[in-house]
Every structure is written in C-alpha cells, then in structure tokens.
C-alpha cells in the first residue's frame, strides 16, 4: 500500500515528473496524429482500390487477354456466393481530342456499364449518370454516337480546384475523342486494320469517372465492351477479354470467395484445354482485390511502415527521458529507499514503487496526449482550411494530390495500443533505475545521508 501512496506523492510533488509527463504527452500526441492520418490515408486508399477492382479479379498478364469468358461468367452467375461479374477488355491506346488538339496515351477499358457498376463501384465514380449508369455511353442529344467516359484527369481542363473538388459544367461538354488502339491477334501479333496498324474510332465524351485513384483517373477511358474488343483486336476469331471483376455476396468473405472462384477456374480451364486459344489460360490468374492491386498499395503500406518505425523511435526517446527522470529522482530519494528497507519493504516493493511512479507518468502523459491529439485531429481540417484561407498554405496541395479531407478518424484499437505502449515505455525506462534503487544496501544509504 505504501508503494502506491509514495509513488503518487512522488508524482505530484516532484516538478521533474511534469517534464516526463510532458515528454510522454508530446510523444503520444505526435504518434496519434501521424498514425491516424497515415492509417486513414492507407485505409481510404485501400477502400478506393477495393471499390475500383471489386472483390476478386480474374486477370490475364498478357495484353492478348483470354477467351471463352462468357461460359465462365454464366457458371459464376450460378454460384450463390457471387453477386455480380463484369468482363473488361483492356488495351493501351492513344486519344486525340479534336477540340483541344490534344493527344495523350491512355488505357482503354471496355466495359458493360451495368455489370461493371454491380461488380465494382463504377457508377459512384460518375458525375452525370451516377444514378443511371446503363445510359452512360449514350448522349441524349445524339443517341447514334458512341459515347465514352474519361478518367477525370484525362481531359486537360484543369478543373480541379484548390480544395480538391472538380468543377463540372451543367451538362457534358461537346467533345469528340478519337481513340486509337493496337489490335493484337491471339498470338500477340499486331493485326493490320485496313492499311493501318492501329484501329481508330470516334467517341463522344459523355461523363467523367472520378475514382480518386491518380493512375486510373489520369489514364483510363471507358468505352463499351464490344468497341474496346474491336479496338484491341479482341473481337475475333473468338471474343476475348482482359479480366473479370467479381463482387461476392455480403455474407462471403473475400478469402473464401476467391478460393471458390480459383477452384471453379481450375476446373473450367481443365475442361476447355483442348479449345483453340486455350493456351491463353496459362496467363490468367485468380486474385483477390488486394493481390490484384498489390503493386499500387504496397508502396503506400511500406511508407506507412516506415513512418511507424520512425515514430517508434520517439518511443525510445520517451524511454530515455523517463530513465533520466527516474535516475534523478532515485538519486534524490536514496534516503527514502534506505528507510523503506529498514521498515521491511522488500526489494520487489522498491522496484514496484518506481514502476508505479512510471505508470503514473505514462498513464497521465498518454491520456493528456490522447485528448490533445484527438482534439487536434477533430479540428485538423478546420485548421488546414483556416491556414489556407489566411496564409495560403495546405498540407497537401489539392490541385496536385488526389486527397480530399485529411483523415482524422481515431481508431480505438490504435489509440489503445499507443496508450499501452506509452505506459510500457515508461515502465521500461524506470526498470534499470528501479532495480538499482532496489539493490541499494539500506545501511550504506542511511549512513551516507547522515553525513
């Protein structure tokens, strides 16, 4: 009992303990803010990639793609765990926008907008046809013209404002896009389209797709599936696609769904191995959305890990500060240690006394850091807005970075880990000085204090 009482009295009576509490507070504040923002960015980024890819992707490594997908789609659609399947034909191409006399390289994605909106969150990325994606490739003013949807950064209009939002005219701009694809035959050779090696088609701009993924928004142009197949040479002799995006029912986990699809695919490939072009199945992989978007997500996760490691070093500094504070307190309190031993407090009691002292430092510091961090995060976007309004300063230039609000949702489990880590760091910092104190010989300490 005396351990708790003395630890608390040391804590509230020693000005130096305020220093240690401040160190822990600052450390917890910084770690909480950085971890929350970083975790939020990574979480948002993963969610956007999940929205973009669906739950599962059957994809070919080759631009040639793979055939006989329709039968497999039928098979998938019969499965109770499958919500929707969307075939996508992909190819590289060039776009020429007549009105701007502008050319750039693009990724052609041929989709069925209805199926793709069911399998992915494609419809949510649209502006004009968000509620009716079935009409996304149709221009009301000219239903005969084939429409397309461009990634919002493909058309160089600089519509992104300083707060990260985009300006949209009331109705789609009248733009004609000449899209050229490189048609490949089933062996991967270029197919001559008439006299040209490229296949060119005219499309009318119908809508923008804003997925908030830079590489998608800046390069992808969506066109009707059959048009993309023509542009990329996937329309004959058997129709081919590049991938199947699949969404599972809510009750199905991604892992179990992917495993079932993988099994179905293996069986399907085995059954169709004698068909012409079946060798293209060799390039096809069944992936979860995480595996499919690995190359995009991994660098951000590595960055997050690096930041976490850097901020763990702050924890080491906290341990050192607590160590120094404890060392100073123990050197000032050696008489108390002698007295406590003379009245029969065991070695473990002395050690616990200083551990409890460290717990008070860690707990109070962590709570103060958590509260101040939470308040700062709660106001972080308002603070950034104020700074931008008054000093024209932004953490991330929204005209450059595809980030909306700064993520500020404090995750309870992260907060709990930070608080527990802070307390443990303090206990570790107090361990060596505490052990030194516990090992002091009472008679020597008391005699020294008599001098």
């Amino acid at each position, binding site marked *: *009992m*005396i351990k*708790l*009482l*003395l630890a608390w*009295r*040391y804590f509230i*009576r020693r000005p130096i303990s305020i220093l240690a509490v401040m160190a822990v507070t600052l450390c917890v504040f910084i770690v909480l803010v950085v971890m929350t923002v970083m975790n939020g960015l990574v979480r948002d980024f993963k969610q956007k990639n999940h929205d973009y890819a669906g739950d599962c992707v059957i994809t070919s490594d080759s631009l040639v793609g793979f055939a006989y997908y329709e039968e497999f789609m039928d098979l998938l659609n019969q499965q109770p765990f499958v919500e929707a399947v969307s075939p996508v034909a992909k190819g590289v191409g060039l776009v020429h926008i007549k009105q701007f006399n502008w050319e750039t390289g693009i990724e052609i994605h041929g989709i069925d907008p209805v199926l793709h909106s069911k399998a992915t969150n494609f419809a949510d990325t649209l502006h004009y046809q968000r509620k009716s994606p079935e009409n996304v490739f149709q221009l009301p003013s000219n239903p005969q013209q084939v429409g397309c949807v461009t990634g919002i950064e493909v058309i160089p209009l600089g519509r992104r404002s300083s707060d990260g939002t985009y300006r949209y005219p009331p109705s789609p701009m009248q733009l004609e896009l000449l899209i050229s694809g490189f048609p490949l035959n089933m062996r991967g050779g270029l197919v001559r389209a008439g006299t040209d090696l490229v296949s060119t088609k005219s499309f009318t701009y119908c809508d923008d797709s804003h997925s908030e993924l830079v590489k998608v928004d800046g390069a992808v142009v969506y066109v009707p599936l059959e048009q993309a197949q023509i542009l990329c040479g996937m329309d004959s002799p058997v129709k081919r696609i590049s991938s199947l995006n699949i969404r599972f029912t809510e009750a199905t986990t991604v892992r179990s769904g992917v495993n079932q699809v993988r099994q179905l695919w293996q069986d399907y490939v085995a059954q169709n191995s004698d068909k012409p072009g079946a060798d293209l199945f060799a390039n096809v992989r069944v992936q979860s959305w995480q595996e499919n978007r690995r190359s995009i997500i991994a660098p951000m996760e590595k960055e997050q890990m690096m930041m976490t490691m850097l901020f763990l070093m702050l924890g080491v500094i906290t341990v050192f500060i607590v160590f120094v504070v404890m060392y100073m307190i123990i050197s000032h309190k050696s*008489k*108390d240690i*002698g*007295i*406590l*031993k*003379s*009245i*029969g*407090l*065991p*070695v473990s*009691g002395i050690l616990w006394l200083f551990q409890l002292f460290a717990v008070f430092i860690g707990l109070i510091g962590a709570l103060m850091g958590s509260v101040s961090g939470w308040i700062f995060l709660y106001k972080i976007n308002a603070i950034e807005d104020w700074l931008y309004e008054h000093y024209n300063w932004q953490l991330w230039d929204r005209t450059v970075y595809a980030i909306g609000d700064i993520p500020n949702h404090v995750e309870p489990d992260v907060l709990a880990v930070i608080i527990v880590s802070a307390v443990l760091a303090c206990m570790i910092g107090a361990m060596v000085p505490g052990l030194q104190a516990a090992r002091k*010989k*009472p*008679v020597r300490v*008391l005699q020294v*204090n*008599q001098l």
Partner: protein
Amino acid sequence: MIQVQKITKSYQMGKTRLDVLRGLDLSVKKGQFVAIIGASGSGKSTLLHMLGALDRPDNGSIYYEKQNLKDLRWGKLNHYRNKEVGFVFQFYHLLDELTVLENVMAPAMASAGMLTWLSLKAAVRQRALDLLEQVGLKERLVHKPYELSGGERQRVAIARALINQPPLLLADEPTGNLDSRTGHGILEILKQLHNVGQTIVMVTHDERIAAQASRTIRLVDGKIQESALR
C-alpha cells in the same frame, strides 16, 4: 532474546582494512533496556545495524529467539525488520512526502497488500493515533516532517518504530541530534516504554544518557569491555 556470538565486521578503506568488530559476544534478555556506549568509530552503530538486520557480520552469528539471522531468506528478513524490530535513527529518517500520521503507519502499510490494507487500515490508524498521543503529537497529524522540530521528528520516529508492536526496539543515538532538554524528553519516552516491558537496545556516546538504561555495555576496539547490570 538476542544472542550475539563472536561477530566480526571489517571495512576496506582503500588499501587499509578497518576492523570494527572483533569477535564480539553479547546477550540481551527480554525486557532489558541496554545502552551500548563507546567512542566514535568503536562499532556501536555497526552492531546495532546488525541487530536490526540492516547489515550482516563477516563472521559469527546473531540469534534472535534462537533463530540465526544469517539463515533468514529475503522474505523472512523483511518480516524481521518489519515486525520484530523497530528502528529509531539519530537523524530520524522520516519520509518527507508523507504526513506525520502516514509516517507512523508506514511500517504497517509496507507489509500490507492493497486488499489487506483495506481491512487493517482502521485498526492501524487507531494505533498510530494512540502512539502519537502517547508521544504528545496528536495535534500534528497532517504536518510534514520538515514542519516539525528535531524533538518532534524523533518522537514521530519512535511512534513509527512501535506501530507494529515489535518485541525489540533499536535506537541509534536517539538524542544525539537534539538539545539536552529535548533529548531528556525522548529518553523519558524510552524509559516509559521500558517500564511497560519493551526491550530496548540503545547506542549512545553520552555516559549520562547511558546511565538511564538498566544495563550498560562499553564497546572498546570492537569488543565488549564491560557490562554492568543495574
């Protein structure tokens, strides 16, 4: 009660070896008030520390109620310091962070866990109040040690030493840091305790103070030279 057999203790001071106790024998019976007298450096405080298990002899044995202190492991040694002996130091050695009342209760708190303390607290507090009343400090319960005079601090130290009702009270120059009038008051308290059967071993260098004890032992060159029972 206490049997000391041929204990030796020496300290290494650089290259010089200082023999403080040289085969000392001593026996203290229950209820005695023993004064150990000797010049500075004669080893009297060292002897007292060994009786209180704050230090160990190099050789020889100290028996407390036929139990060799050398054989006590950590838990039993702490129990001995906590329950069997009470220590009064020359420089009081009170805990500055605690009040007078808390200082007196400290030994009881040291041996009690959180739950045990809840059941003991009321009784310990009452005993601490009684002891403080006995030593005339009932009005200074919430004061801190640094707010008290030397004599008052020593009376708090005596009350603290007695809180667990130890059979043996060890006092190391209890009046050594006090003026003669205050020191006399402390001595009166010790005499009163002796009168109710408390065994006391007191170290002093002052012959007049030693004369108040029931038995005086003179320590010369690390050995007992004279023992007189009055």
